[in-house]
């Protein structure tokens, strides 16, 4: 917190823009990677920008009620808010954002905000596909949220802090990633990330073969565009969060200063998040999807065990 509001505001806008751009490009890269695995050329990497532009250029001549209008906005706002409480780069002046003591717990709530807003909006459309999709989504959240919370709790116990910045600082100072310090917590969090991304095998929410894209069924045009933007930003949020928590974050206050430092930090961030992103993507390529109860059962088996082991590790390591 520097107290200079102009720099802060610029930082916020830049963070949001960065998250949007990187998220969208990751979406395009994902499509490209999937296409290559499927023996195809695939769309250009910037395809998602064209899709977004087209979706924003569509007219909307149907209404289902206020919440339906608000749902995509809600998702977008939830994503950006979550983003603002995550230090994108460690130290530095530009991307520290609103981190504070206890933001880890606050983030846990923010992460499900988007889904809840979506649920309210979908409920108003009256589309049974959407309603079933939402109920599946909420039960899936109960699945992956528990290992995630367990792994966070393990870290909190281990390092006696609930602040992301402190955790990053510890990793920067000692040079040990938390992924090494508490591998079980990292594994549990990694499994939860698979669930959070809603890619195969956990893409039951919008499974086209069953629910015709589920909660999104009634959202077209501008709504879909906003959801896509929100989704891209949120994907970036999740990636940065895991990177910050377990992979040491990006940027170093001492090593880099000035614009060059920020740029180097960003490059580091992109490399780390991209490699992390490729895990759910490449698993998604070769996996069919679980049914809801199978997915929940999956999360409550190995990831939960890893989470518990992480806590035990945290307690006895100290």
């Amino acid at each position, binding site marked *: 917190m520097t107290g200079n509001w102009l720099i802060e505001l610029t930082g916020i806008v830049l963070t949001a823009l960065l998250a949007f751009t990187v998220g969208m490009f990751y979406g395009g890269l994902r499509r490209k990677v999937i296409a290559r695995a*499927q023996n195809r050329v695939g769309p250009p990497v910037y395809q998602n920008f064209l899709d977004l532009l087209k979706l924003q250029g569509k007219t909307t001549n149907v209404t289902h009620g206020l919440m339906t209008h608000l749902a995509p906005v809600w998702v977008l706002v939830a994503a950006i808010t979550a983003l603002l409480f995550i230090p994108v780069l460690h130290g530095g002046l530009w991307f520290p954002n609103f981190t504070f003591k206890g933001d880890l717990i606050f983030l846990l709530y923010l992460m499900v905000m988007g889904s809840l807003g979506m649920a309210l909006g979908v409920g108003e459309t009256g589309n049974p596909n959407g*309603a*079933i999709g939402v109920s599946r989504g909420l039960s899936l959240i109960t699945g992956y949220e528990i290992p995630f919370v367990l792994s966070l709790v393990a870290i909190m116990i281990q390092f006696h802090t609930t602040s992301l910045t402190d955790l990053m600082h510890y990793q920067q100072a000692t040079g040990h990633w938390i992924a090494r310090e508490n591998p079980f917590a990292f594994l549990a969090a990694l499994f939860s990330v698979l669930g959070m991304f809603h890619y195969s*095998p956990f893409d039951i929410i919008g499974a086209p*073969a*069953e629910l015709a894209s589920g909660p999104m069924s009634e959202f077209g045009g501008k709504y879909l565009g906003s959801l896509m933007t929100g989704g891209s930003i949120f994907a970036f949020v999740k990636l940065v969060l895991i990177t910050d928590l377990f992979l040491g974050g990006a940027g170093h206050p001492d090593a880099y200063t000035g614009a060059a430092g920020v740029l180097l930090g960003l490059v580091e961030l992109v490399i780390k998040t991209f490699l992390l992103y490729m895990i759910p993507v490449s698993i998604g390529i070769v*996996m069919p*999807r679980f049914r809801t109860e199978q997915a929940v059962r999956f999360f409550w088996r190995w990831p939960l065990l890893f989470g518990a082991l992480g806590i035990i590790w945290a307690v006895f390591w100290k």
Partner: protein
Amino acid sequence: MIMKTTSERNKQTTLFIGPQHPGITGNMMVKLLVEGDTVVRAETHIGYLHRAFEKLIEQRNWLQSFTLLCRFCVPEPDPMELTYARAVEAIEGREVPPRAKYIRTIVAELARIQSFLLWYGGQAGSAGLYTLGQWTVGDRNYILDLFEDLTGARIYHMYIWPGGVRRDLPKGWADKTRRVLDYLEKRLDDYNRLLFDNAVFQKRAQGVGIIPKDKALEWGVTGPPLKGTGIGNDVRKDEPYCAYGELDFDIPVYEGGDVWARALVRRDEIKQSIRIIRQALDKMPGGSYYNRIPNPMKWRLPAGEAWVKTESVRGEIGFYVVSDGTEKPRRVHLRGAAYTHGISVLEKILPGQNIADVSFILNSLGACPPEMER
């Protein structure tokens, strides 16, 4: 009492799978009454593809009807032509030269393989594994290329005629076919590693959509679903037609009656089809490839009737053909395998299943709407 019924009704939702739905095979509708995620009642609604073929065939002459016939079932048109041609031959008593029999066998088996490849895509796609569909449907083009060389068309061939086939094998076609088969055999291992070795697919498929063994025959189940219940009935073995009697092949049979068993049957059937084609290419006799038919505009068949069955990918298909001694058929009635699978069998096995498995089961039964309503 009234309170109870209303609360029961509130718990249940009506869900339409189709006609516009990515999970449906073709253009049909399954109306589901669901409670939570479980299907309580299922009803199949068809008629979206009704083109009145059987009426139109009564307006066409015996040969013209072939253009309509192959469109009965889009993923696999050749068995339709084959069955109808055999029915016409049975009424007329026309002989088919041995070379034509072998060519017909090859065409029918190639059609089976391409349809199985399409099925791979559907089955895996309905489970959310899109990569396999991209591979198999892409590789299916190689077989369609063979068809194009042989008949001039990718999908609708109109190649099998009464009395033989329309064209002889082009030069070099046999070698090309062998190369494609070698390639496919190599790729099949990839497909099977991706699909059958996948723990998620095993979990999804095992114990889902069970057809009881003791009811299977009575329910009119045929083809891979029947072989998946442990009953190895196959028209190619039971009543050999074309050159099947002279070729060596096995009928894969698996116990269980679930989606998994049906998938295993199909996996093995492709290998058998490749084996059959290789043998047929090796044993291919010389001679004429067709028996000349008279001027088709004035070609009359003797009065009579025929009931002819053929094994297709989805099960047995049959044609009931009645001739009244004129240039035009009196009645051509198709019994499609999907006619039972897609309607009565589906309605019987869906209750109690998860919504997630509806299109999964639909694909494994091989429901083909154009075949049901014609």
